[in-house]
């Protein structure tokens, strides 16, 4: 009886999320991050003259490192609030999830705190990555 009243009122008054606006913001910020990463890659490869593999790795290190530092200074969560998936989907999101979890757990010590909890959020990404890499690898192997 009463529950029906609650359901009715709650269903009539849902909080609308600005999905379109969020998508636009994510598209732009995600694009900007990829553009910056491409410029870094270009600098390492064509200006410094490193081989492609090394240039790639160095670019990742720079992006992950900068994100990690921004997380430590308490800036990245503010950027993330604006950009949403734009910063969460690229490798910046991975770096932030690890750094933030590690920072949060630092009071519980190095082993039980930082090392145990570091992958609390990123673990899902790693597991999903390994599983999907295995499946797509298997498909490629069978198709060939």
């Amino acid at each position, binding site marked *: 009886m*009463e*529950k029906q*009243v*609650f*359901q*009715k*009122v*709650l269903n*009539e*008054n849902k*909080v609308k*999320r*600005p999905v379109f606006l*969020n998508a636009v913001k994510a598209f732009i910020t995600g694009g900007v991050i990829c553009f910056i990463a491409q410029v870094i890659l270009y600098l390492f490869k064509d200006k410094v003259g490193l081989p492609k593999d090394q240039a790639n790795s160095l670019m990742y290190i720079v992006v992950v490192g900068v994100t990690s530092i921004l*997380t*430590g200074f*308490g800036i*990245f*969560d503010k*950027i*993330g*609030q604006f*950009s*949403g*998936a734009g*910063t*969460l989907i690229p490798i*910046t*999101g991975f770096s*932030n*999830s690890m*750094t*933030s*979890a590690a*920072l*949060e757990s630092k*009071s519980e010590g190095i082993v039980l705190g930082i090392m145990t909890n570091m992958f609390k*959020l990123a673990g899902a990404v790693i597991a999903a990555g390994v599983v999907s890499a295995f499946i797509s690898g298997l498909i490629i192997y069978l198709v060939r």
Partner: protein
Amino acid sequence: MKKIGKNSVEFNHVYLRTSSAISGPKEAEGPLGQYFDASYKDNYCGGQNWEQAEIILQQHAIEAALSKSGLKMDEIDLAIGGDLNNQIAVTNYSLRAYDVAYLGVFSACSTCTQSMLLAAMLVDSGYGENIMTITSSHNSTSERQFRYPTEYGGQKPTSMTSTATGAGASIISSIPSSIRVTRATIGKIIDPDLSDAQDMGRTMAPAAATTFKTHLEDFQIEPSEYDLILTGDLSKYGSEIFLKILEEWQIQTPENTNDAGLMLYDIEKQNVFAGGSGCGCVTLVTLGYVVHALKTGKYNKVLIIATGALMNPIMVAQNESIPAIAHAIALERSML
């Protein structure tokens, strides 16, 4: 003390002898900042980590209540309180420093009114002369336990509430003073089948409305009985639901309704999304602002309906919904 109706009690000789409210930095910058006894400039409050910070806040609130009332801890017959941490750890550790009998309670944000109404019942039934209540919350201890790490860059929705950093203590007493504790209504668990931990205001609104309705029915009074009906902490979206449910029940929507989550912060400017939440929020508003307003005569009768979303991350991950509860307590200006 007399049982009234189904779930309510009327107190005979119970008074709010003193209260204290200690806040974090963001709360001090909010519209009610001037009503707090003290505020910390950073979220660590001089502690090593967030949990220590919350302990410091609680102990500061206890000390402030004692010094304001001129009492010593050995004159306190019992301490009742809780917080949002697992095993109400912060309250357990804060009270480790004191030689006092203690009952720990938990009902999420409604721990504030739950401990006050239990204290009032015990005082009125003769357990003792002075009973202290203590409640607190800290933004970062709650975020890490219930949601994500503080620095995690995920996007928070507009329905999200921001857990307040603050602690408050009160001394409920049989010795007459300027504020009387007159009535209380105990809530029941209401589960509206919502499971979004980032939308707790709407989850708690049905519980608040149910307790309010029970209160009106038990005492056979109209909403206009009170100068202020304070819910806490439904925030922006929850308050809308609260009023709409009352409308459905044809309870004349009281204009004198407000929500602690909307009062503690300037929600346009302070980056708190839909408003404040946590035991600290309703505690700071009640024991800081409302007590002051009762003493100065701005209000005569106030009903505080504190609401708790009884959220457990494991249960929610197992596809369970979030049960909610609300307990109400009425404070009245006495002629002393």
